[in-house]
């Protein structure tokens, strides 16, 4: 089999390849999942706002870009704030970016009384629009596959700590963690339900797998102790609830630098981890240790290619994979992909090749192609 572009496999579909990796199993080769928002929108030449106002356009972008770039998974409108908005937060919709919280919604404990915590994803706010995309994308993928869904859909959920921080504003959230941990716990308990309902509804509409993330519990944000005692238990609770209700395979994205706490991260029981700009060898070693101790169930490792961060984690040792996807050369990206595949696979996990965080806008096509090229060249199973 050739590993050049457009040489799409017919023997193994992206669905089979991706779901096998999420299960810790091997098919023909390592799959590629680039969390394709910008590649799809840029390929179609539409802004995020245009695709938000016209969900069918978003679906079209997902379909056509997957066929062009040949990665192995599509996404819905993920990383949005429909739940936070339905709870009561006011969102701001930039021209070409995901919505942001316009101003903190929960400033005091009294504000929690005005929030709508019990949500119906099929009725409230923009949640039905997200579900429409899942449903329509599913139908379109089946139609393009002539009756068979060849490419999976990954939906997204916000960990309770992230949702709480979005509702209070990040600064206030960090102060709450320090000053009033009981309030933080109460907020996370309430914040979990909306996103759990959303993820369950997305699964009912046809999502095949899910990723969840938390950018506010990283090692450069809060202490390991705060993570261990406050936010990590809610990550685990959220992940286990998703599994219980849907049975979907779950990737967790510890966004940022979590070097000092990966042992705790793995204990939140996701099936795989979409790694940020971290030392891949260290992350893999920790996963081996926690799995061996029966504390985790890690099957696959995703991401990690193209760090947009310091080129060292300890101030001394340079990391070999610090090329951003938008600025690196194809040769650099291929080499980073090779390192990641080799490190992950040699440790007995399945590699799902992908960038270290959100796919960067304006990434050259050739760099996106390189990731698939690298998977075909360096990720073939014998």
């Amino acid at each position, binding site marked *: 089999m050739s590993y050049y572009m457009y040489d799409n496999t017919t023997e193994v579909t992206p669905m089979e390849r991706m779901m096998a990796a999420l299960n810790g199993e091997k098919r023909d080769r390592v799959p590629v999942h680039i969390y394709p928002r910008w590649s799809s929108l840029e390929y179609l030449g539409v802004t995020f706002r245009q695709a938000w106002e016209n969900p069918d356009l978003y679906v079209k972008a997902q379909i056509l870009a997957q066929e062009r770039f040949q990665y192995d998974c599509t996404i819905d409108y993920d990383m949005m704030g429909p739940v936070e908005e339905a709870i009561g937060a006011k969102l701001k919709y930039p021209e070409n970016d995901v919505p942001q919280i316009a101003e903190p919604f929960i400033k005091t404990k009294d504000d929690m009384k005005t929030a709508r915590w019990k949500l119906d994803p099929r009725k409230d706010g923009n949640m039905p629009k997200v579900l429409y995309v899942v449903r329509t994308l599913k139908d379109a993928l089946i139609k393009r596959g002539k009756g068979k869904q060849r490419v999976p859909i990954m939906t997204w959920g916000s960990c309770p700590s992230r949702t709480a921080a979005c509702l209070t504003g990040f600064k206030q959230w960090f102060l709450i963690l320090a000053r009033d941990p009981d309030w933080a716990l109460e907020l996370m308990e309430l914040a979990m339900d909306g996103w759990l309902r959303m993820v369950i509804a997305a699964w009912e509409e046809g999502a095949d797998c899910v990723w969840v993330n938390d950018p506010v519990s990283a090692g450069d944000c809060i*202490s390991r102790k705060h993570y261990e005692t406050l936010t990590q238990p809610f990550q685990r609770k959220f992940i286990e609830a998703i599994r219980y209700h849907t049975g979907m395979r779950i990737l967790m994205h510890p966004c940022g630098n979590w070097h000092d706490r990966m042992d705790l991260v793995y204990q939140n029981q996701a099936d795989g981890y979409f790694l940020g700009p971290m030392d891949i060898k260290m992350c893999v070693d920790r996963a081996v240790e926690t799995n061996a101790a029966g504390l985790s169930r890690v099957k696959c490792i995703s991401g990690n290619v193209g760090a947009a961060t310091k080129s060292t984690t300890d101030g001394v040792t340079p990391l070999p994979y610090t090329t951003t996807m938008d600025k690196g050369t194809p040769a650099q990206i291929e080499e980073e992909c090779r390192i990641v595949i080799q490190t992950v696979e040699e440790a007995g996990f399945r590699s799902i090749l992908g960038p270290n965080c959100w796919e960067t806008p304006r990434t050259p096509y050739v760099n996106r192609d390189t990731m698939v090229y690298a998977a075909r060249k360096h990720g073939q199973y014998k």
Partner: protein
Amino acid sequence: MSILDDIRKSVYSGEDVRAVELVEAALQEGLDPHDILDNALLKGIQDCGKAYEEGVMWIPELLLASEAMKASINILKPRMVGGITGENAPRAVLATVEGDVHDIGVELVGVMLESAGFNVRFLGGNVPTEDIIEAVKDFKPHILGLSTLLSNTMYVVPKILERLKEEKLRTTVKIMVGGAPIRQEFCEEVGADGYAYDAVEAVPVAKKLV
């Protein structure tokens, strides 16, 4: 332990009520407000910066310390001739660029720069470019610090530099950039003068530039 050491410690541990009480007590004892600022409050916040850099303090603790310092400075302000940092102190304007609401990082930069003797005007998050230009005209800063957490808004930075050139202000101010997607290469590419990875690193970079 002297009262100055106690104030320094209370800032470090983020005890705002205790810090204010101690500052008031120190003033009653007749201590010079500048002495309290330089040898207690600023040292306390500098201890925090060092602790953050060493990985033994995090954002919640830094924010608590920042709150304790601000509360204490409010007590000192009316008693200090020429303001907190003096008329000749270097000035800095700090902002997160338009389209990006994240301002914790740049606020921490402000705290650290103040602790290093800068007179800081903090504009907050999601600041329109024209407001930044106006602040540069009005405050005449030595440093303009621009932050962006989102990769989508990092390209606002060169637009701000272009506007500064159009207003013939570019040569009057040194530009510092920072934020998650920003790296030294970006700083050089857009023609900014300095890059800092975090609030602690921002201080030596700013000092070098002024």
